[in-house]
C-alpha cells in the first residue's frame, strides 16, 4: 500500500492566479486538503492609523484608497456616515446619481471577479470577453465622474458632477450592448460542460458555516443566506424596488452565477434611476459636526461598515473599517478549501469568493 505523506503546500505570495499577494498554506494528505492557514501582511498599509487625526476632507480620499476595485462604495459609505453624524440631507437627484455610479462600479467589480474566476479555470476566451465588456462599463464611469478607478464622486450633501442628458443617452445605449453581451456570456458559463466540471459541487459551503463566519455579499447569497443584501435597507434602493438574488447551491458555480445575475440587476437599477431621475440641485449645504456613528453599505463583495468618531472641527478622531473581504476570505479558507478534494481546486475556490486582500488588510 502506498504511504500517505502529509505535505504542507504553500501557495503564493506570488502566484499566477492571485491578483494580489496572499499566502495560503495547505496541509494535504495526497490530493486532499486537510487544513489551510492564511498568511497575510503583504498588503497591510495601516490605513486606519493614517486616517486618525486627519480632517474629513483628507480622509475622504484615503477611504477611497482602501480598495481600488470598489472605490466608489468606500467613498459612498464614508460620506453617508459623515452625513449621518452631521444630519446633512442629500438632494433627491444626488441620491439617485449616487446609485447610478455605485451600480456602474458594482458591475465593473463583478465582471472583474468573474473574469478572474474564468481565467483561473483556464477558460481564457470567456475571461477576455468579460474583461473587454468591463472597459465599456468603465468608460461610462469615466464619462460621469472623470476618472476610471478612484473617482471621488461623492461629497457630504451631494455629488460633484451632474449627469448630462446626452451622457445618459450614451450610457443607456452602452448598457443595452453590455446587457446583450452579458446574456451571451452568462449562457456560455451556464451551459459549458467543462466549466460545470470545474465549478459545480466544488468549494461547497453550507448555510450554517456561512452564518458562523458571518459571510456577506455574493458568497453568502450563493449559500442561501436571506436578507444579506444591505441595499434592501437603503432608502434610495427601496424606492427603486430592489430585490435580492439568492441561490442555494453554495458552490463555486453558484457564487459566479450570483454575480452574473447581479450585473443584470444593476443594469435594471441604472435604467430605472435614469428614467425617474428627479430634477433639482445636486449639492446641498451642511457642516460636518462632532459625533459617533456606525453605518453599513453594500459593497460589491458584501457588507461594508464604517465606524467614525469626529470632533468639532470635522477631524476624524477614531475610525474602524470592516470590509466584506475579511469575512469572505476567512470563510473561504476555513470552510470551502479545508474540505477540498483536490489541491487543484484551491486556486479556483479561493478566487470564486472574490477575495480582495487590499480590503482585507487595509
Amino acid at each position, binding site marked *: 500500500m502506498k504511504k500517505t505523506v502529509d505535505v504542507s503546500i504553500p501557495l503564493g505570495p506570488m502566484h499566477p492566479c492571485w491578483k494580489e499577494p496572499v499566502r495560503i498554506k495547505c496541509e494535504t494528505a495526497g490530493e486532499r486538503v486537510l487544513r489551510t492557514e492564511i498568511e*497575510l501582511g503583504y498588503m497591510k498599509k*495601516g490605513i486606519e492609523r493614517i486616517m486618525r487625526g486627519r480632517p474629513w476632507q483628507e480622509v475622504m480620499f484615503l477611504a477611497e484608497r482602501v480598495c481600488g476595485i470598489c472605490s466608489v462604495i468606500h467613498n459612498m459609505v464614508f460620506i453617508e456616515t459623515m452625513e449621518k453624524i452631521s444630519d446633512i440631507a442629500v438632494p433627491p437627484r444626488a441620491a439617485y446619481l449616487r446609485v447610478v455610479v455605485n451600480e456602474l462600479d458594482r458591475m465593473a467589480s463583478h465582471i472583474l471577479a468573474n473574469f478572474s474566476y474564468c481565467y483561473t479555470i483556464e477558460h481564457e476566451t470567456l475571461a477576455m470577453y468579460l474583461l473587454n465588456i468591463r472597459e465599456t462599463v468603465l468608460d461610462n464611469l469615466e464619462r460621469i465622474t472623470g476618472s476610471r478607478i478612484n473617482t471621488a464622486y461623492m461629497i457630504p450633501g451631494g455629488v460633484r458632477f451632474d449627469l448630462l442628458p446626452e451622457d445618459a443617452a450614451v450610457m443607456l445605449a452602452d448598457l443595452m450592448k453590455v446587457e446583450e453581451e452579458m446574456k451571451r456570456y452568462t449562457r456560455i458559463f451556464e451551459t459549458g460542460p467543462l466549466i460545470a466540471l470545474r465549478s459545480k459541487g466544488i468549494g461547497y459551503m453550507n448555510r450554517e458555516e456561512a452564518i*458562523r463566519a*458571518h459571510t456577506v455579499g455574493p458568497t453568502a447569497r450563493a449559500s442561501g443566506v436571506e436578507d444579506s443584501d444591505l441595499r434592501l435597507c437603503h432608502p434610495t434602493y427601496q424606492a427603486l424596488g430592489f430585490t435580492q438574488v439568492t441561490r442555494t447551491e453554495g458552490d463555486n458555480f453558484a457564487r459566479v452565477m450570483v454575480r452574473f445575475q447581479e450585473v443584470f440587476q444593476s443594469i435594471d437599477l441604472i435604467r430605472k434611476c435614469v428614467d425617474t431621475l428627479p430634477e433639482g440641485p445636486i449639492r446641498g449645504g451642511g457642516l460636518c459636526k462632532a459625533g459617533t456613528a456606525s453605518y453599513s453599505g453594500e459593497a460589491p463583495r458584501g457588507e461594508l461598515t464604517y465606524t467614525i468618531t469626529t470632533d468639532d472641527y470635522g477631524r476624524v478622531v477614531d475610525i*474602524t473599517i*470592516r470590509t466584506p473581504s*475579511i*469575512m469572505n476570505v476567512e470563510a473561504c*479558507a476555513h470552510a470551502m478549501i479545508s474540505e477540498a478534494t483536490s489541491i487543484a481546486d484551491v486556486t479556483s475556490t479561493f478566487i470564486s469568493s472574490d477575495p480582495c486582500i487590499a480590503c482585507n488588510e487595509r
Partner: protein
Amino acid sequence: MKYLYEKDLRQMKYNILTSTRHDETVRAVAQRLGMSDAKLRRALIQKLDMSFLENLESRWQMGQKHADNGDPVAEELGCELFTRFIPLVDTEAMQTIYSDTTAMAQNTPLDEAIRRGKERIREAILS
C-alpha cells in the same frame, strides 16, 4: 539562496489586534473567560492564523447571537462559542469539560461546577 522563508508573524498579528474594534473584542472575550487581556492576546496569536484574527469581531458577534442556544451549562461555558466560532479549544477537550461539568452539577451547586469548568477552559486555552 534560501529556499524556505518563514517570517516571524507575531508582530504583524499583534498589529491586527491593535485596531479599535479588535481591541474591544479581545477585551470582551477576556472578560467572558475571566482572564487577562494580555494572556488572551498571546493565546490568540499562537493559536489562530491572521485571517481568523481579522475576522475575530464578526465571529464573536455571530457567536453571541447563534451559539449554544438552549442548554444553560453549555451557554455558560461557551461550548460552541470557543470551539466552532472562535476555535481556541479542541472539540474533544471541550466535550470532556462539558460532560464533567454536567456530571459534577448533579452533586455540587451549579455555580461551583461552572466555575470549575471555566477554570479548565482557561487552562485549555493557555496550554
